[in-house]
């Protein structure tokens, strides 16, 4: 991790310890008319990989008024295959153009011989995969010239030959590469339900000191082959009660932390999204009231 600089050292600032939302074009006019309702915006990097046009015009206006978080969904860091150099260059171009406060990606893979598979796919956790993921993160941070955050996944299957717990796997990645972590609390609840583990125990084992951002989202309900609950990370609805409870526990330990409301499908009216963000802000404020701390992070 030599030569890495924190985003703040590049003069682009950090995300504030409050709630932000994913930017959706249908909210553009309302956002500009309604300054300061949220602390930051996050966008999927790949949506802005066209050469020009309205997407870039809107993002420039958003970036001029708010801190920005750039979130990649296509780098395929968790793949055995080498990283896509062209894609790294596209990311580098976006970071240079928009100077986001931070860049994050996923502990997942999405590309193989078949092409780009447009989903965040799971990987086994063992010494071999740990070394490969760490190499990819080193290469990414080197190529982008910035420290990145890595997000814990939602999963629907596990691998019989996984040998390392996910929390331990993430902690070791952060230790070896110097990257930060993005804790998706909805993903914790989804995976815990799907695989029958205690989400609070997962949180207790999670290396919270590396967390630079939290994600919250809604999930969809399904059932597995045996009729047991199977939760889907759908980003199409309000954050559920069980996830708010986990979030309250998380910010209770972590203090105010940049928190994103992810609502990518069946996108609601702007005020609905703002209400979700306010709820996250209120959870952070409750924690600050309880401890007397203002800014732990």
């Amino acid at each position, binding site marked *: 991790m030599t030569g890495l600089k924190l985003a703040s050292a590049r003069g682009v600032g950090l995300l504030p310890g409050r709630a932000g939302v994913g930017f959706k074009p249908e909210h553009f006019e309302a956002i500009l008319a309604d300054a300061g309702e949220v602390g930051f915006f996050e966008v999927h990097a*790949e*949506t802005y*990989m*066209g*050469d*020009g*046009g*309205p*997407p*870039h*015009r809107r993002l420039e206006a958003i970036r001029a008024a708010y801190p920005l978080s750039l979130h990649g*969904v*296509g*780098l*395929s860091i968790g*793949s*055995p295959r080498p990283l*896509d150099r*062209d*894609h790294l260059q*596209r990311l580098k171009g976006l970071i240079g153009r928009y100077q986001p406060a931070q860049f994050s990606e996923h502990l997942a*893979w*999405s*590309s*193989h*011989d*078949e*092409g*780009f*598979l*447009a*989903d965040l*796919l799971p*990987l*086994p956790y063992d010494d*071999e*995969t740990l070394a*490969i993921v760490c190499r990819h993160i080193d290469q990414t941070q080197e190529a982008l010239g910035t420290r990145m955050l890595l997000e814990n996944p939602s999963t*629907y*299957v*596990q*691998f*019989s*030959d996984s040998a390392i717990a996910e929390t331990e796997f993430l902690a070791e990645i952060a230790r070896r590469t110097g990257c930060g972590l993005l804790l998706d609390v909805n993903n914790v609840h989804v995976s815990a339900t*799907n695989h029958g583990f205690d989400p609070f125990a997962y949180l207790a084992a999670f290396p919270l000191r590396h967390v630079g951002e939290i994600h919250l989202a809604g999930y969809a309900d*399904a*059932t*597995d*082959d*045996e009729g047991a609950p*199977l939760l*889907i990370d759908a980003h199409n609805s309000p954050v559920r009660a069980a996830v708010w409870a986990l979030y309250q526990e998380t910010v209770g330990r972590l203090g105010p932390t940049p928190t994103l409301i992810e609502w990518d499908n069946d996108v609601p009216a702007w005020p609905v999204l703002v209400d979700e963000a306010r709820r996250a802000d209120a959870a952070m404020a409750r924690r600050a009231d309880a401890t007397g701390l203002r800014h732990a992070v």
Partner: protein
Amino acid sequence: MPFEATIASFAHALVDPSRPAPAATRRGDGRPVERRFAVYRNNVAVALIGALEARYPVVRRLVGDDFFRAMAGAYVAAEKPRAPTLIHYGDSFPDFVAGFPPAGAVAYLADVARLENAWIEAYHAAEAAPLGLDALAATAPDAFETLRFRPHPAARLLRFAHPAASIWAASQGESEPRPPEIWAAEEALVTRPDADVFVRVLPPGGFAFAAALFSGASLGEAAALAAADGFDPGAHLVGLIEAGAFQSPISQEP
């Protein structure tokens, strides 16, 4: 199992619904995971079909949701994105539609798809200052013949066997689209000189004239190529410039 083999078996099973869930994901006690694995298959299909629905809204409207979903599903099964930039996925869909037998009865469908693909390409194209009419005004009349123009990065020229631009335009509103009054071949220009994408039907001879200018011919050469009874290159040039088809500046190099 080595990592590469695990991921390869996962990817193979993901794109081939006739395969069972990969062995590496089976539970130690042998309990089935097919419905769990199906979540991933469904995610891939929803994302890729959704990308086509967003790119081809008029084609979808013309054939209906169910037909579109089936046609898009067949395309997705045959053509995966080659890069993680889904905003570019589906540019070969018009050719697929043209060769998709169940859509054969809707002969104009592939033409409408080509127009929608050009529209989205224009939407994402690089920014450039469009050439204005003032540049012509500043040119000496005897130099007109030698003028050369550069196409604007967003400009696309299309030639249809069917009135695809009229069909497309009639499908933009809320009301039920009506078939065009005149059923004839059309030529169209798609431009985005500033924020908004425009689609224009070109007058007769317009495609040949504009295509010649786009490929670097001088104004005199292009006018000669498009020459026909009553063809007015001056009026065509003004129309193209007003549409934002060229970028600034013009040149007079030979």
